[in-house]
């Protein structure tokens, strides 16, 4: 109970919010790192996933990528990438997180195109659409709800995983928790709990927000209980 009181005290100190390296700074870093990672993930995974779905090939590859990345610990990528040619700083952290954003984006893009009613595809062919027109005018719009699901899953996962960037001093809200553990339980207990609360709230609110976006992007007749293809996170 003592730690909880300490956490409330810590959160109530305005300097903990506005100081350099305070909550607001860390929140900004967290959001920026996550945004960049998800953006890279989208740029890489969506074209490939849509194309594989369009061609109707590579389902095995998609599953394989998901399974292998599931087994890779985030901590390992975060520690290995800075020691490669990338060097230290933001880029290795962003790249490490982007790796974990790819599987849900890829799998949902692929499934989104595969799940399209074959009759819609036939009709488009009959109207004389070329393969590329079919992809951009029929398959892409119909796959949007799936893309949104993938985007939500990937974003939540990246925001959750970004907390681990603090292991390699990479910034983000996780830094508050790590610093608390560095202080030791008796002094830093409140800060640890406060940091945990902030990280958890951020992840849950991103999840809620994107769930609303996903709902808005899904046409009304399609809003049946679609099995959300969530990939277990490795964060």
């Amino acid at each position, binding site marked *: 109970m003592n*730690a909880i009181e300490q956490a409330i005290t810590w959160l109530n100190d305005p300097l903990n919010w506005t100081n350099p390296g305070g909550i607001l700074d860390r929140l900004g870093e967290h959001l920026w790192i996550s945004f960049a990672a998800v953006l890279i993930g989208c740029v890489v995974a969506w074209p490939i996933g849509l194309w594989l779905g369009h061609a109707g090939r590579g389902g095995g590859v998609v599953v394989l990528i998901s*399974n292998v990345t*599931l*087994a*890779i*610990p*985030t*901590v*390992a990528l975060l*520690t*290995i990438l800075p*020691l*490669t*040619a990338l060097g230290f700083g933001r880029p290795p952290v962003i790249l490490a997180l982007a790796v974990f954003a790819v599987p849900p984006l890829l799998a949902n893009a692929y499934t989104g195109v595969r799940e399209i009613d074959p009759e819609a595809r036939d009709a488009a062919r009959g109207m004389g659409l070329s393969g590329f027109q079919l992809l951009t005018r029929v398959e892409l719009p119909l796959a949007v709800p799936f893309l949104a699901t993938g985007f939500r899953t990937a974003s*939540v996962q990246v*925001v*959750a*995983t970004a*907390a*681990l960037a*603090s*292991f*390699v001093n990479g910034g983000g809200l*996780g830094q508050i*928790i*790590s610093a*608390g*553990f560095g202080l030791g*339980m008796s002094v830093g*207990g409140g800060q*640890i*709990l406060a*940091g*945990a*609360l902030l*990280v*958890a709230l951020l*992840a*849950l609110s991103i*999840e809620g927000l994107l769930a609303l976006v996903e709902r808005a992007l899904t046409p009304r007749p399609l809003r049946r209980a679609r099995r959300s293809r969530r990939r*277990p*996170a*490795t*964060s």
Partner: protein
Amino acid sequence: MSSRQWMLSSVQYADAPGNPWFSWQYLRDNSDTVVSALVEHVSLTAQAVVLAAAVGLPLAVLAYWFRPLTGPILALSGVLYTIPSLALLAFVAPLVGTTRPASVLIALVLYALLLIVRNALAGLNQLPTEVLDAAQGMGYGRFARLFRVDLPLAVPAILTGLRLATVSTVALVTVGSLIGYGGLGDLILGGFRNNFYKAEILTGTVLCVALGLLLDLLLAGVGRLLMPWTRGARR
């Protein structure tokens, strides 16, 4: 093996000859540390998955018997799953104490819960109604039907959940290195803190990925042994 090729190419990348990505010397000199880290990793993973199954399977059965409980049970485990692992660890550690691996274990169990509950419930809910009618007609009671009909038929789905939970738990254990109980994660993070000792980092990473894939294969093998339930050997 692809990881081996990667190791070889990484060796060429190593800029400092004194700090290679892989060294037999390191393995020989530190075999005790590596083995004890591996043992800790396996034991944490096994305990977490067994505990999560012990909690998750009864929860899935509850949700299967009493439909109104399905929503709350799935929502609760979903929220626990969305909370970042670091935050989960930071919530648990001040309350349990950081001197025992119990904090890591609790966080791992909470995390694996959703995968097990959701898959088991999906398996139970997809049983063919004819089979259930037949079981009822033969006079099975609730419990007898559960153990002789429902659960054996749901084994494939339950096993899928266990495999997913095992692989992601293996990767997740590394997060525990924040408080010194991370199994192979201690090697990864220890190497990073110990002047970026690449051999230690990569040893931890490779063993961790290999362990995840090995346990996955092992469970798949167990599944093959369990599947011929038609012999009636399982009571």
